[in-house]
C-alpha cells in the first residue's frame, strides 16, 4: 500500500462542489479521503500545499505529440513532460503523425510508448479517414479496441460531407467522440491568418470566419442526422459560438473547446510577419476574442484545450505563408487562463471545470476530472498568484514556438500527480 497525503491546500473541485481548505489522502493511485485535518500516521509521503490550489489534474482534449514520425518537433516523452509541467495529467493526442494514426498498429504503438516513456496519461485520437485524405474511413473500430477515445482528422477538415456523415455514424457505433477541425479548405485556401485589415496591410492571404462557421454548421447538422457525439475543436469565431449555443438548445450532442491563444490575442499579433502567430484557425479580431470570453462566462464553451502544436524553429524561420502552423500551449495554458479569473470573467472553480471536469466528461474518461473518493489520484497543484515570465528556453517541450515569449503573468504549477505518484514537483520531473 502506498499512501500520499496533501495537506492544507485550497481544494477546488467543482464536480464535488468543493472550494476550501481540505486534506487529500491518496492510496494506491486512488483518492481515498477528502477531509479537514487528516492524520499523518502511516503515510508514505506528505505534501504541504499551504497557499496552493489543489485541483483535479487538467485534461487536454487537443495536443500534438508528433510521435511517430516527427520526433524532431516533439516526442511522447518531451510532450508528456510539458504536460506535467503545465498541470495536465491526461492528454488526447491527434492523429496527424507520420504514419498517420489511422490503424490499430499505430494506436498500439502510441499506447505502448506512452506507457513506457510517458509522464502523464496519453489517449490517442484516431483519424476519421485513411491518411487524413478525407476519402475513405480509417480503421475506426480496430483503433477503438486499441485505445482511441475519439476520431478526428485534425489539421485537415473532412471536406466531403458524405464521408463525414459516415464517419460520425460509424463512430457512434463504437461510442467514440468525433472531433471536428472546422475549416472549409476551399474558402481558407492559403490563409493562415485572419481575413481583415491586418492581412490586407501585410499583403497576406486571409481566411474568413465563414470558413470555420460553414463547417461548424454542417457538422452540427450531421450530428443531428447521425446522433453522433460531436466536439468542435479550437472554436474561434463569434458566429461559431452562436451556432453551438443554438444547437445545444435543440438538444444536439455537441460540445466545443477554445484555446488560450484564441482567448488572448488577435490578428494584430501577426504584424511583423510573426510566424509564431501563424495558426489554424487563425487568430481572429478583437470582436471574436471578446465573444469567446463572453462564451466562457456564459458557459457555452465546454472546455479549454491547448492545441499544443510543437514545431522546430527552422519551420518557422521562413516566409509567413510557408511557415508551419500552430504554437505550443501546454506550459502556458494555466497562467494565460488565470487572467480570466483575475479579471473576474470566470471564477477559479469555473476554470477548473473547463480544464478538468468537462474535458474528462467529453472524452468519456471515468474517474478523471474529479477528486471524489474512488477516482484516480490525478491531481494538479498550483500557486495562482506567483508571478511568472514566459520563457520558452525553460520549456519541457522540445519546441519554442510561442507568441507569448516574455509575457508577465501569474500562476505556476507547483506539483502534478498522476495515479497517486508525484511526476512533477517544483520544476523537476520525477519519473
Amino acid at each position: 500500500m502506498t499512501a500520499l497525503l496533501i495537506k492544507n491546500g485550497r481544494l477546488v473541485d467543482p464536480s464535488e462542489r468543493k472550494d476550501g481548505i481540505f486534506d487529500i489522502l491518496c492510496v494506491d493511485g486512488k483518492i481515498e479521503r477528502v477531509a479537514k485535518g487528516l492524520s499523518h500516521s502511516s503515510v508514505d509521503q506528505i505534501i504541504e500545499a499551504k497557499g496552493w490550489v489543489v485541483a483535479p489534474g487538467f485534461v487536454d482534449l487537443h495536443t500534438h505529440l508528433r510521435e511517430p514520425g516527427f520526433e524532431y518537433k516533439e516526442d511522447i516523452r518531451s510532450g508528456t513532460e510539458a504536460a506535467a509541467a503545465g498541470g495536465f495529467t491526461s492528454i488526447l493526442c491527434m492523429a496527424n503523425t507520420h504514419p498517420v494514426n489511422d490503424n490499430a498498429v499505430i494506436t498500439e504503438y502510441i499506447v505502448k510508448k506512452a506507457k513506457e516513456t510517458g509522464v502523464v496519461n496519453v489517449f490517442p485520437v484516431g483519424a476519421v479517414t485513411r491518411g487524413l485524405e478525407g476519402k475513405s474511413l480509417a480503421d475506426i473500430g480496430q483503433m477503438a479496441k486499441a485505445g482511441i477515445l475519439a476520431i478526428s482528422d485534425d489539421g485537415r477538415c473532412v471536406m466531403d460531407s458524405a464521408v463525414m456523415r459516415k464517419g460520425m455514424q460509424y463512430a457512434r457505433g463504437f461510442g467514440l467522440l468525433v472531433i471536428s477541425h472546422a475549416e472549409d479548405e476551399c474558402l481558407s485556401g492559403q490563409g493562415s491568418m485572419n481575413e481583415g485589415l491586418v492581412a490586407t496591410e501585410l499583403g497576406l492571404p486571409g481566411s474568413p470566419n465563414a470558413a470555420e462557421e460553414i463547417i461548424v454548421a454542417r457538422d452540427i447538422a450531421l450530428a443531428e442526422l447521425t446522433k453522433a457525439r460531436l466536439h468542435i475543436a479550437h472554436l474561434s469565431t463569434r458566429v461559431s459560438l452562436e451556432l453551438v449555443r443554438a444547437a445545444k438548445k435543440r438538444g444536439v450532442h455537441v460540445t466545443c473547446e477554445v484555446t488560450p491563444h484564441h482567448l488572448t490575442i488577435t490578428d494584430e499579433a501577426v504584424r511583423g510577419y510573426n510566424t509564431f502567430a501563424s495558426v489554424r484557425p487563425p487568430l481572429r479580431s478583437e470582436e471574436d476574442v471578446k465573444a469567446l470570453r463572453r462564451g466562457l462566462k456564459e458557459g457555452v464553451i465546454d472546455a479549454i484545450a491547448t492545441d499544443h502544436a510543437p514545431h522546430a524553429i527552422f519551420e518557422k524561420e521562413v516566409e509567413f505563408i510557408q511557415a508551419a502552423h500552430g504554437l505550443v500551449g501546454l506550459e502556458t495554458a494555466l497562467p494565460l487562463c488565470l487572467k480570466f479569473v483575475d479579471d473576474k470573467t470566470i471564477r477559479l472553480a469555473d476554470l477548473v471545470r473547463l480544464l478538468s471536469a468537462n474535458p474528462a466528461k467529453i472524452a468519456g474518461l471515468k474517474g478523471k476530472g474529479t477528486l471524489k473518493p474512488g477516482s484516480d489520484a490525478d491531481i494538479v497543484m498550483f500557486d495562482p498568484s506567483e508571478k511568472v515570465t514566459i520563457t520558452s528556453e525553460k520549456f519541457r517541450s522540445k519546441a519554442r514556438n510561442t507568441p507569448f515569449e516574455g509575457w508577465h503573468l501569474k500562476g505556476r504549477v507547483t506539483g502534478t500527480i498522476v495515479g497517486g505518484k508525484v511526476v512533477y514537483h517544483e520544476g523537476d520531473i520525477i519519473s
Partner: protein
Amino acid sequence: MGEFPKDLLGIKALNVSQLQTLLDEAARFKGLSEIPGKKGEELKGKTVINLFFEPSTRTRTSFEIAARRLSADLLTMTPQATSLAKGESLKDMMENLEAMRPDVIVVRHGASGIPGLLSKYTEAAVISAGDGSHEHPTQALLDLFTVQEILGADALEGLHLVIVGDLAYSRVARSNIYAFKKMGARVTCVGPATLLPPGLESFGVHVSTDLDRELPDADVVMLLRIQKERQEKMNFPSLAEYTRFFGLTKERFSRMKKEALIMHPGPINRGVEIDPDVADGLMGSGPKIVILDQVKNGIPVRMAVLSLWGCARRGGV
C-alpha cells in the same frame, strides 16, 4: 525629420519629411544623371547585392544602373524562389552573404514579408524591391517623383489619385496609398468587388466599384497590372469583362480631365487595363501618358535610396 529606419521595407514607416528628403535627393540625382558620362562617388567602396527571387526587368535594371551610377560594387543574384523545404537555406544563404559584409541588399520576393525576415540576418540595409502583396516602396517614390516633376512640387497636396484594378494583391497599390496620402493627396480605389480587400477603407481611401463615376474627377489615374491567374481564381469572369468595366478605353480617356496624368507600373497588358492607342499616346490632346517617365525616374529615385541607405550602414561615411 527623424532618423531613417535601418531598412526600406515600405512607405508606411516613413514620415512626410523623410519622403520629401528622398524626393529632393532624387531631383538632385536626376540633374546629375542627365550630364553625359557623369558618375557620383557616393557608394564608392560599398557593396550592393541585388537579390531578385522573382523575375523583374524594370526594377532590377533600374537598381543596377542606379548602383553603378553611384560607383558601387554591384552583384546581382537571381536564386530560384524558395519553398518550404528550402526555407532554411534562405536563412543560410543570408548568413553566407552577411559574412561577405555587403552594405546594401536589394530584395525582390514573391512572398510578403521576406525583406524584413532577411533583415534579421544582416547588418546591411535591406531595400525592398517589392515583396508579395505587401509593399513596393521605390515604385511609390518614383510615382510621387513623376507627379511632382510634371505637375509641380505643390501638386500632391489635394490631388485626387484614382487607383484602378487589383487592389487585393497589389504591392504597388499599398505603397502608393501610403505615399500619396502622406503627401496630402486624396485617394480613390476602384476595382471589381472581388479585388477590393477587406479593411481597405481603413487606409483612409474612398473605395468604389464604378470607374465611370470616379474617372472624371481624377487628377492622376494609376492603372494596376492585371495578372492572368487572378482571373483563373475567379476574381472576375473574363479579361473582356474586366476591360469593359475597368479598362481605360478610348471612350473613358475622352471623359478624363485634360490635364490629368495616366500612370502604370508596368508591364502593361495592352487591350486589358489600357487601350493600345491610349497607351501609345495616339489619342492627340488630352490626359498625358507618363508610363515611360515613371521608368526613367526610377533611376534617380533609386540612386537617392541607395545613397541614403548605403552610406548609413557599417559605420557610415
